[in-house]
């Protein structure tokens, strides 16, 4: 626990916003030299704000209204902007969530690094340049000299995060603050970036902010759990994981994939003979692309069944979804809907047969329309019921997905991410589809919301005898949600089978790799 050698000490920190009131309540936190401390909680819990407050970076118009922050026994909350500026980057370096947004797109990597190194130090440009190249080398970026002249968009997401880490460490701060450093990255890249952070953490004190409790438990020495702007529980990671004291921590743990109460992976169901969609050697090649996006993919989906398509980005998952939805044309015979009794169903028939829920609940709903109009849109377009009944229909759909029909005149901005996904689901269900396609529909949600939406999807599938095609990059989630799991890599199916088989006895090397990449940061079972 806290010792006198604490590098970072936060005592009773409060942050107020003029209109939002108090958002951080009496937060206290310690991090000893060389220690890795995790700050976990759902989005909106105040984790990022607490970290930003350490060096007085609370975004305007918010302000620190109480408490103290010590770094190396130096009190920081009393310092003004002028006094704090030279300390930023020297006492603590930040790695932010989204590396593509956190680097200026019109500036070269080298100039960002060199200028940060020269700022408040006596270094010459030449020395700073050498330091910058060393920093890039230390984060294992290939060809650091030529990378100095490149711009952020020339790098992959993982490489950009490495550059962010180099930038955070360029002034050798004793404290490194990583705010959801891997959330925006693919599973395989995630683990490599985390390994890098772990190696670097040996020489630094690391404050790790994440919503992923399992990853934090593996990665950190001690954890602080935040909820509603307060620290609700803290302690050694393993202890907190095995004996959570606070209800909120317990609910977070229960929501972890694979630990949820209603694990149903072993359920077997009798397949109905008729497939709702059948892919036979589906091959899609985008114009100008050397490689096919999807090649020779065979599978079918039956009523009352959940099929999960799993793979990293670029594996062809979304291309398959687009082919099913009819957004891209496919060669005749490669995609059939036997239930429709037609070789090539028209757009209207296809829409009634198949509906989609998309990944981003923020951009897939028209922000200017009230919810009633959003959900009623397909009903009106396809004249599914008389005008007078429309409102009742929308109300019924909204209450089915767990929303209050009394809120139907509000616009999407009034709803949270999870609620918006429910609205999108209601809109999809308005058509009475037989096949529901969810393209990363759970990815943008935190784990507790994820668990609730997944349960809802499962209920609705049972009730309506739907076929559910879930597209995800998260193998653990797929195993929990799906009867069958299909693993895609570079447009080809590398493995498919029942969820339990794929999880427990993966045959293909790539599946094992995926599992290992995701399991590395999950706690051991039990």
């Amino acid at each position, binding site marked *: 626990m806290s010792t006198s050698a604490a590098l970072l000490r936060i005592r009773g920190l409060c942050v107020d916003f003029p209109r939002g009131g108090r958002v951080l309540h009496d937060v206290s936190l310690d991090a000893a030299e060389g220690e890795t401390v995790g700050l976990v909680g759902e989005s909106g819990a105040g984790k990022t704000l607490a970290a930003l407050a350490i*060096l007085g*970076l609370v*975004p305007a118009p918010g302000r620190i209204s109480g408490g103290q922050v010590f770094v190396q026994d130096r009190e920081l909350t009393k310092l003004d902007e002028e006094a704090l*500026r*030279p*300390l*930023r*980057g*020297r006492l603590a*370096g*930040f790695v*932010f969530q*989204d590396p593509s*947004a*956190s*680097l*200026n*797109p*019109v*500036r070269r990597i080298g100039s960002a690094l060199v*200028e*940060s190194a020269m*700022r*408040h130090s006596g270094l010459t440009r030449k020395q700073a340049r050498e330091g910058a190249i060393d920093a890039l080398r230390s984060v294992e970026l*290939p*060809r650091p000299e*030529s*990378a100095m002249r*490149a*711009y952020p*968009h*020339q*790098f992959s997401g993982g*490489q950009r995060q490495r550059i*962010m880490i180099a*930038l*955070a460490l360029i*002034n050798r701060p004793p404290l490194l603050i990583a705010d959801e450093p891997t959330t925006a990255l693919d599973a395989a890249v995630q683990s490599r970036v985390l390994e890098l952070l772990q190696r670097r953490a040996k020489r630094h004190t690391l404050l790790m902010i994440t919503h992923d409790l399992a990853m934090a438990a593996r990665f950190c020495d001690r954890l602080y759990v935040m909820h509603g702007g307060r620290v609700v529980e803290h302690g050694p990671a393993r202890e907190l994981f095995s004996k959570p004291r606070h209800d909120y921590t317990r609910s977070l743990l229960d929501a972890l994939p694979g630990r949820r109460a209603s694990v149903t992976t072993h359920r077997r169901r009798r397949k109905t003979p008729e497939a709702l969609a059948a892919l036979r050697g589906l091959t899609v090649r985008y114009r100008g692309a050397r490689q096919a996006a999807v090649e020779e993919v065979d599978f079918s989906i039956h009523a009352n069944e959940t099929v999960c398509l799993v793979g990293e980005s670029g594996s062809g998952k979304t291309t398959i979804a687009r082919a099913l939805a009819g957004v891209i044309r496919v060669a005749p015979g490669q995609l059939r809907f036997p239930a429709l009794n037609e070789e090539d169903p028209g757009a209207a028939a296809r829409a009634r047969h198949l509906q989609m829920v998309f990944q981003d609940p923020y951009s897939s709903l028209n922000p200017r329309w009230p919810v009633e109009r959003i959900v009623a849109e397909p009903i009106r377009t396809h004249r599914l019921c008389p005008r007078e009944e429309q409102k009742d229909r929308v109300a019924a759909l909204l209450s089915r997905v767990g929303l209050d029909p009394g809120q139907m005149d509000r616009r999407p901005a009034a709803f949270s991410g999870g609620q918006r996904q429910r609205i999108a689901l209601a809109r999809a269900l308005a058509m009475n589809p037989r096949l529901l396609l969810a393209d990363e529909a759970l990815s943008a949600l935190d784990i507790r919301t994820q668990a609730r939406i997944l349960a809802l999807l499962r209920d609705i599938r049972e009730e309506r005898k739907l076929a559910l095609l879930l597209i995800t990059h998260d193998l653990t989630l797929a195993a929990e949600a799906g009867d069958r799991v299909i693993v895609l890599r570079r447009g080809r199916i590398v493995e498919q089978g029942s969820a339990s088989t794929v999880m427990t006895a993966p045959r293909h090397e790539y599946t094992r790799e995926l599992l290992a990449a995701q399991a590395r940061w999950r706690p051991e079972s039990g």
Partner: protein
Amino acid sequence: MRRYRRDTTLVFSGLAQRAARLLILLLGVNAILFVALGLAGDPALMLAGEDPTPELLESIRAEYGLDLPAWQRYLVQLGRMAQLDFGVSLFTGQPALAMALEQLPGTLLMATLSMALTLITAIPAGVWIGQRPEAASRRVGAALTAVAQGIPGFVMALVLIQVFVVRLGWLPSLGYAQPAAWILPSISLGFFLAPKLCRVVSAGVAEAMQEDYIRTARANGASMRFILWREALPAALPAAVALIGTQFAFLVSGVVLIETLFLWPGIGLLLLYSAQNLDFPVLQAICFVVAVLVFAVNSLADALLRLMDPRLRPTTQ
């Protein structure tokens, strides 16, 4: 890491394509002008003076080739234009293109001065407003630029003449030879672009200030000054350059107005006289010069844009 083509090839890439576009542009301008001038009137009437006899008109038409059918006149003129021969002025007898080019330096001088004025006022003002657009003082600034944008440049010129020349007598309004006479025309012409540029810069800076990379810069100890000029402004500049590129043609119409008001010896004044006199060859030559100029500025802006925003550059791969 994806790599770029060499920077030199990038600036000159598609040079042939650009040349073809210029050719099409010139043909179009020429054709429109030919039709428009045909509708405008008969230059023979202007040349013949008062009460011309039919015989005199005939001889004038024959001399200048005006008696030929329209399509023949068009082809003849096109053939000459291909050799950069626009004929001679109907009034002075000098070669038309030489007359237009002679006036060009005056116009370029004023354009350069007013562009410099525009840049040194609009960019700092835009940065200042964009830094914290919600603050009261910045809102006043933003409102002023909006009002300024609504004032036509020639109205501004008339007000400036009234105040500084007529009332105060501080500055001359005419006379190309003394630099003091350059001030008012340059300021007036600057008014055609500066308010718009200021608004684009302030919007761009305000948007950039909301970006995550500004937070990164602050977390690295950058000063507000550095953040504004080195982080936010570079992100806002491409939009400003694009504006200048697209607004340049519009600026040319401003040049005509301002040169007329200040009797500035430039291409705009020549354009006005030639149009009044239906001096077709000179008009054709002026339009040719202006079209090439506009095209050159647009190409320059495009090239600059690709230098400023690396994401627009083509990558090899």
